[in-house]
Structure formats: C-alpha cells, structure tokens
C-alpha cells in the first residue's frame, strides 16, 4: 500500500507540472476522482441515490444544494469519514487516481494522508499552534525535529498564517481568532502534503473578512491541489469554483463548469435554487 501511494504521489507531481505549463488542458485530463454509481444508506435511510461523477484535478469543485441533500455525506465518502457513522452502508465505486478506495485492502490512514479535510467549525486541537501543525507528521512516525519544523513553517506560510503566528508558535491554538483557527486547520491539513483537500462549509462560521482570506487561499491552493468544497453560499461557489455540482435529495441534478451553471443552467430546478427561489 505504501508503495502504491508513492506512485500516486509521483503521478500527482507530474500532473502539477503539466498544469502549470498548460492550464487549458484541464478538462481533457484524466479525472482525479471518479465515482461510479455511489449509493449510501444510514440504517434504512438512503442518503445518496446512485451518483456518478468525475472530479477534475487541480481545480475547485463546489458542491451546492439545500441542507440534507447529501452533499456533505458525498464529500465524506472521499476520505471515508462516514465509516464511523452507525448504520453506514455504501455501494458503488470511488476511484482516486484509478485505485478503488473502498477496496478491502486499502488502509484508511494512508488514504487520509492523500485526501485532507477541513471542517465546518474550526477544530484545532487544544495544544500549541506548532503541535497542531506537527501532529499529522508525528503520527506518521517522523521524529526529525528539523524536518518537522521546516514542514510546519512551509504549511503555515501556504495557509497565509505564518506572519501572524511566527513569534508565538508555542501559544495555545485556542487563543487564535476563528478565522486564524480555520487557517491553522488548513495548514495542519497541508503539512501532511495531500493531493486532494475536502472542505465542508469551511467559512460558514467565519466573519466576511476571514471568509475572504480563506477564499483567496483556496484560489492559490488550487494550483497544486484538487479542492472540493461544500458551500451554502452561492456567491462563494461562483467566485471560487471552476466546476459546480448541484445536489438534491441524494441525487446529482446538474454538474458543469461553474460559469455554465450560474449563467445558463440546463435544468429549471438548478436555476430555481441558485436564484434563491427555493432551498
């Protein structure tokens, strides 16, 4: 498994190189994630009713839809965070870089190093800022202090937080503001060096200024990462995403380039939702 993952990471690096020279070819590239007829049940309740879709690499894909439409559940399939939910059952195939992540032999821990996640409410550990970012590395068994320090600094810089916290890395993460905490959570995710980042309404608990900062950050990050973001904010989806998927009652109603979805959606249902006529 470890070897398989190395190959995956190498492939990903090649993708990144290609991207930086030729951004237009994004749509013709192989999908980063490929979902085939995914169905999810919680006990008797069917939350996802057979969704198939391809997620493009190095782009921001937004999942929109009313509460309870299954978009968060669908997002959490990609790093298998639903596994802990009581009564969770899943059918169908999800392939990341061609490897089925629901195969028996998959190590969930390895998968999650490849697929990071940022949550709705900032959830730093009740530890120091440094410890928060270093945690993902320490659990991988990395003990080289210099290497950890370098990766922590790099991640905090990527998350645009370094300048604000570089002098008090030993301070408790809980002393930071909400927006800073969320950027710390992003830094923590980046430190593990994933290739995909899942974001579950990452700005819904933040003020407009902090939100703008996170949005800028997402824009910068998509150069290197594949980002999927769940959002209730239509403006946010149109501002930051390249592709948008509209979910309703566990089904994928429409999925297209964001521009198309917001200017000339194919389905009436989608139009009604994005113009705020329901939902």
């Amino acid at each position: 498994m470890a070897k398989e993952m190395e190959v995956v990471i190498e492939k990903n690096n090649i993708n990144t190189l290609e991207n930086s020279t030729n951004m237009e070819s994004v749509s013709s590239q192989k999908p980063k994630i490929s979902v085939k007829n995914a169905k999810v049940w919680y006990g008797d309740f069917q939350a996802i009713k057979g969704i198939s879709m391809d997620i493009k690499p190095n782009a921001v894909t937004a999942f929109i839809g009313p509460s309870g439409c299954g978009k968060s559940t669908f997002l959490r399939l990609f790093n298998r965070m639903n596994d802990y939910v009581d009564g969770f059952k899943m059918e169908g195939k999800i392939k990341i870089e061609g490897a089925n992540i629901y195969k028996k032999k998959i190590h969930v821990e390895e998968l999650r190093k490849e697929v990071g996640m940022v949550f709705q409410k900032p959830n730093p550990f009740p530890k120091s800022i440094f410890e928060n970012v270093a945690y993902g590395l320490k659990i991988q068994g990395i003990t080289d202090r210099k290497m950890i320090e370098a990766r922590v600094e790099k991640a905090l810089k990527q998350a645009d937080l370094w300048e604000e916290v570089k002098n008090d890395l030993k301070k408790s993460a809980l002393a930071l503001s909400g927006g800073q905490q969320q950027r710390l959570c992003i830094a923590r995710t980046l430190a593990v060096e994933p290739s995909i980042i899942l974001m579950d309404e990452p700005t819904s608990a933040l003020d407009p200024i902090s939100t703008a900062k996170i949005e800028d950050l997402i824009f910068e990050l998509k150069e290197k990462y594949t980002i999927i973001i769940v959002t209730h904010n239509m403006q946010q989806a149109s501002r930051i995403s390249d592709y948008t998927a509209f979910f309703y009652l566990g089904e994928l109603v429409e999925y297209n380039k964001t521009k198309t979805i917001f200017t000339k959606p194919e389905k009436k249902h989608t139009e009604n939702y994005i113009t705020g006529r329901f939902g």
Partner: protein
Amino acid sequence: MSKIRINRWKDQLFKIWGITCTLIGLILLVVFIGDILIDGIMRIDWGFITNLPSRKPEKAGIYTALMGSLWVLGLTTVIAFPTGVAAAIYLEEYAKKGRFSAVLEINISNLAGVPSIIYGLLGLEIFVRVLGLGASVLAGSLTLSLLILPIIIVATRESIKAVPNTIRDASYALGASKWQTIWNQILPASSGGILTGVILSLSRAVGETAPLIVVGALAYVPFAPGNPLDEFSVLPIQIFNWISRPQHGFIENAAAAIIILLLVTFMMNGVAVYYRNKWQKRWK
C-alpha cells in the same frame, strides 16, 4: 394581608429553611472536626507518626498503620487506575452501541452501589482463599480496587464523552489511527477529569474499613509491610481498634489518628479540585 405579601413571606421562610438545611451538614462537620482537634491535636508529634504500636497509649504510634495505608493506596492505584481507564476507553471508543454494551453499562453503575462489605466478602473468597494470597496488602488492595473500579470507569467515561467529536474527526482526517487518536488527543484532553475521578475514588479507598477487616487486615501488626504479601493494618482499623479500648490515652490517640487520616483525604481532594478547575478552564 394581601396575596403578594403572603407570597413574599413564604419566599423568605423558604430561604431561611434552605439556609438551615445547608448549614446542618456544615455545622456538624465543623463541630466534629473541632472536637477531634481539641482531643487529638496535642497528641500529634513526630513520635506519634514514627512509633510502632504499643500497649501503652503514650508510647503507641501510627507508623505501621500509616505505612499500611500508603502501601494499600499505592497498590490500589497501580491496579485500579490502568484497569479502570482501559475499561472506560473500551466502553466509550470501541464497544459497539447495542444490547451488550447497555447491559455492561447498567451493571457497572450497579456495582458502584454495592455495599463495601460485600466487596470484602468477595475479596476474602477470591483473593485470600482461592488465590491463596492470605491476609496480605495485595489481597486488600485488590479488594479495594474492585470497590473503586466502577467509580473510576464512570468518571473516566464522563470525561472522555466531554471531548468534542470535532477533535476525533480532526485527528482521523489527518490519517491518525484509532489508537493514535485516543493516545494523543482524547486522553490528554480528558486527563484532568480522569485524574479527578481517580483521586476522589482513591480518597474513598483510604477511608474504607469494613472490606479490609473482612479480608483480614489486623488491628495489631508489629512491623510495617515490606512487600505486597506481608500482613498489614490501615489507619481506619487502627482508629477503630483504639476507640474500643477503655484507657483515656487511646481515645486521644484515636483523635490524633483521625486528624492524620482527614489530612490525607483532604489533601487528595484538594489535588482533585485543582485538576478539575485546570481542566475546566481548558475548554472555555
């Protein structure tokens, strides 16, 4: 009198009644401690703590009983702390919620209510007789461990439950295994609550008398225990023994020993309160 005035009057009356009820317990405790202090404080000196038991009250000391209590305290901690915490972690983090875990849960709560003398009888049969440990420190500590295990389990589960699920999510999402999440995040975050529960349950164990008498702790032991299989006495049994003597000197000794025992338990409770406050601050 108008209705409003009657209501106000009732309100005042109930307030006074409430204050009285609150004070009853406190006043009794103050009177008791005052009485004990008057009787025993003059008796406490270095010799009282370091002397071996004696038939003459002025020569008798609590050395063997105090050492016995410390031995029991230490061994009980070593046995009950890891066992109780491990059981709580299993029940909270691993056990599937279902009929089996519900039955376990109810029974653990029930165990917390079983009278201590019953634990004594259990210890006598299993540890002293079947396992052949005799009336030893180890048998006594095992018995007390059984007694406080339910308290430790319940306290630990409560503090593990208080750790927000978002912390678990964050840890798992970074690629941590269940074990790493428990060890690196959940236990440190709940350590204050766990320590509080453990210390409070241990301070209860220090004061227990009945189960140890049943197990066979002796009132008169010439030497402090040197290893876990030695016979032993503990402070409460020493106090019980002295109070039943006719000479006035022994009553004084008993009062002095009570002061020492209270000091030990108050100190332990103080440490518990300190940790609880420190822990509560963390989540605010």
